[in-house]
């Protein structure tokens, strides 16, 4: 009788254990394993385990601004050029440039690399892969350019180069060809994202993706906190290619003579 007043929360636990024990005692080991799996599957069902994974990529078109992480990005045009600013591809190749107007919509500066993560190299358009650049001794910094003294025999072949990892874009000012290291809040920059492209490619459009950037306040897998993490493809579209210099456009201004000429 002395324990009677303490039976409250213990009753449910003891009852559940007795039920489980009664059922489990009559089961073989295999049946117990099976029952455990079934119980686990039932348990994860409310958390969307069986929901179909859908691609949520919205359409991307030139002239239409999109929000990605801390940036508003408006793709202006895509062009191929022989060279731009200090970037000179190896003979036979050219540069593929995506001209975009980029605005940091946040309150703090963002690095160029964050923008580079949001706009990866277009696939299947003969972008010279990263491995090839390494082998050639080219500048392989995150936004490094091509080495003009590279061996022409190592040119990227159509198709074969697509299996290797593609390099991040070299991001330069489309106005003057200078390197923009930081995107300050509220400032709109007209930038060119550039990749070296195999000379044999002659398509009229490129597939361009914009990757969603997720803000990680506190990482659960590393000691890094407070950074933008590339996530899934947020926007996708085919952008027509002009065979002109990437800095050209109706809004071009500034010391454009500094930029390389095709």
């Amino acid at each position, binding site marked *: 009788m002395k324990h009677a007043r303490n039976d409250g*929360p*213990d009753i449910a636990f003891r009852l559940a254990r007795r039920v489980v024990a009664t059922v489990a005692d009559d089961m073989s080991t295999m049946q117990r394993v099976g029952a455990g799996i079934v119980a686990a599957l039932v348990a994860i069902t409310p958390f969307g385990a069986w929901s179909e994974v859908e691609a949520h990529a919205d359409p991307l078109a030139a002239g239409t601004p999109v929000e990605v992480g801390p940036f508003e990005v408006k793709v202006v045009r895509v062009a191929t050029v022989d060279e731009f600013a200090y970037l000179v591809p190896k003979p036979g190749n050219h540069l593929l440039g995506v001209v975009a107007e980029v605005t940091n919509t946040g*309150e703090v500066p963002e690095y160029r690399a964050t923008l580079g993560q949001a706009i990866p190299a277009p696939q299947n358009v003969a972008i010279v892969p990263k491995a090839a650049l390494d082998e050639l001794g080219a500048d392989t910094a995150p936004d490094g350019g091509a080495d003009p003294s590279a061996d022409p025999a190592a040119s990227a072949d159509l198709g074969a180069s697509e299996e290797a990892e593609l390099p991040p874009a070299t991001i330069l000012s489309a106005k003057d060809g200078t390197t*923009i290291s930081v995107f300050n*809040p*509220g*400032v709109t*920059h007209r930038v060119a994202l550039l990749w070296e492209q195999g000379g044999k490619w002659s398509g009229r459009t490129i597939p361009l993706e914009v990757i969603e950037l997720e803000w990680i306040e506190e990482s659960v897998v590393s000691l890094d906190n407070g950074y933008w993490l590339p996530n899934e493809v947020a926007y996708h579209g085919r952008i027509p290619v002009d065979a002109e210099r990437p800095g050209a456009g109706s809004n071009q201004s*500034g010391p454009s003579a500094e930029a390389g000429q095709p």
Partner: protein
Amino acid sequence: MRHGRRRITWKGTALVVGGVVAGCTLVTYVPQDTGVDEPFIVEGAVGEVLDLTYAELTVTEVRVADTLAGVAEAAAAGGTFIVVDASWRATQGETTFVGAEVTDARGRRFWPTDQAGCSILAKAQPGYAWRATYCFDVPRDALDGATVRLARGDQGEEHAGQRRDAVAVVDLGISGREADELWQATETVSPQEPGYALASAGGSEG
């Protein structure tokens, strides 16, 4: 007969839950002692010598430009460039001054660019003054009431590198009316290469 079996009681449950709730309440609502992490702000104006204990700093001149003309390249601003000329005199030992940031009246932060030969940091030995030119690309609405924050500590990670250290905050002296005029002006500035500062620019020539 069972011995040593622990029973879950209402009293024990209430004790544990109450303890967790009390702990969460303390962590959430009791102000943390952040004072020990705050930097020591030394405020000043353009032309004033500021003592940061580890260095003497003078912001010698503030200009606004839409184009920077360096030795190797020229750069056009996305917004407009605030060009800040400063003179550092290390007083304790060789010092690298990494912190450089403009803050506007809304609290937005702007970092310097290294375009056209502008400095993003400075490094000086004690005994002489070293000049540096910082260039910040800012939007129009950032000019009015902007201040520049210079220090030896890095401003990244919410100014983590400046905790419990002296930091200079200099009012750039740009009013609302001046901001409009400065924005509309089409100025080209040639940033000075880093080097020894003259006495007239906050140094003592040795």
